[in-house]
């Protein structure tokens, strides 16, 4: 703490005592307050400000966040589930690639497009058809249609 004056040092000590965090002020600090009008005034102002702020209310939220939070939780759960489901697919593709490199597989299975096609099919199955048109009522309602 870089305090330049004796008043500031005393005020920080008094502030901690006032907040119930600093134990007891020293006799010298008490003497300082008795003889220093600005510090006495500062302490009174601090007490007054604290009293005012303790009763300061927050505004009731003008929006209810629950629906939005709930939607985001579900979205994040879905993403998490998708990630978990895609891990095995990724692992399988790695195994496939390793097999291509190190094991003598039959020629048709070595084609580089085979793992790519497998990945596309896996993602399609897990994530659903990206070209599908939503026609179910709840989905349309959710989108405000």
């Amino acid at each position, binding site marked *: *703490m*870089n305090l330049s004056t004796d008043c*500031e040092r005393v*005020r*920080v000590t008094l*502030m*901690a005592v006032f*907040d119930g*965090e600093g134990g007891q002020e020293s006799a010298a600090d008490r003497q300082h307050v008795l003889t220093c009008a600005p510090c006495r005034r*500062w302490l009174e*102002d*601090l007490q007054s*400000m*604290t009293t*005012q*702020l*303790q*009763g*300061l*209310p*927050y*505004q*009731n*939220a*003008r*929006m*209810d*966040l*629950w629906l*939005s*939070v*709930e939607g*985001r*939780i*579900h979205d*994040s759960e879905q993403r998490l589930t998708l990630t978990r489901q895609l891990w095995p697919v990724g692992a399988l593709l790695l195994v496939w690639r390793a097999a291509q490199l190190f094991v003598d597989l039959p020629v048709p299975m070595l084609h580089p497009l085979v793992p790519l096609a497998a990945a596309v099919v896996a993602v399609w199955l897990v994530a659903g058809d990206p070209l599908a048109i939503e026609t179910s009522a709840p989905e349309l309602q959710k989108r405000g249609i």
Partner: protein
Amino acid sequence: MDDAAATRACRTGNVDAFRHFVDRYQTRALAHARLLTRNEADAADATQEAFVDAFRNLRSFDPARHFYAWFYVLLRNRCFKQRSRRGTRWESGIDDATPGVHPGISEAHLDLWRAIDRLAPDDAELVVLKHIEGWTYEELSAALAIPRGTVMSRLYGARQRLLTMLAGERP
């Protein structure tokens, strides 16, 4: 339902039980986020994301602690991310529809919120957490990830600036 019961329910995967936390803490979370982001839309977004983070990380929450003190760290991180993502888009000073204030608030309270809003976000954060939330120096030190001595010096500076502002508004 109290926080501990809601925590237990959420940990079993009950998303609806998390509503307890949103209903209970959204008001103060929005007010705090607004002080940190100084932007209504960013504050709402950061608060929602922080609640999602809280739900996902609820297993690491110790129910012996106060939920909001734990949640505040997540909220603060989200607010900082929001600020760095969008840049600082300061909204002009507080008006009668200031977030963080009751619609039917007294003029005296409104003056206090105006003064707090004019403080730098770091100062405003300390003042609100100390004076309105009643956090101890230890709690402030843990939430803001700064030593206790730094809490004291920053709190002193923030109070000093707020006192100066309030003194300037006196007739």
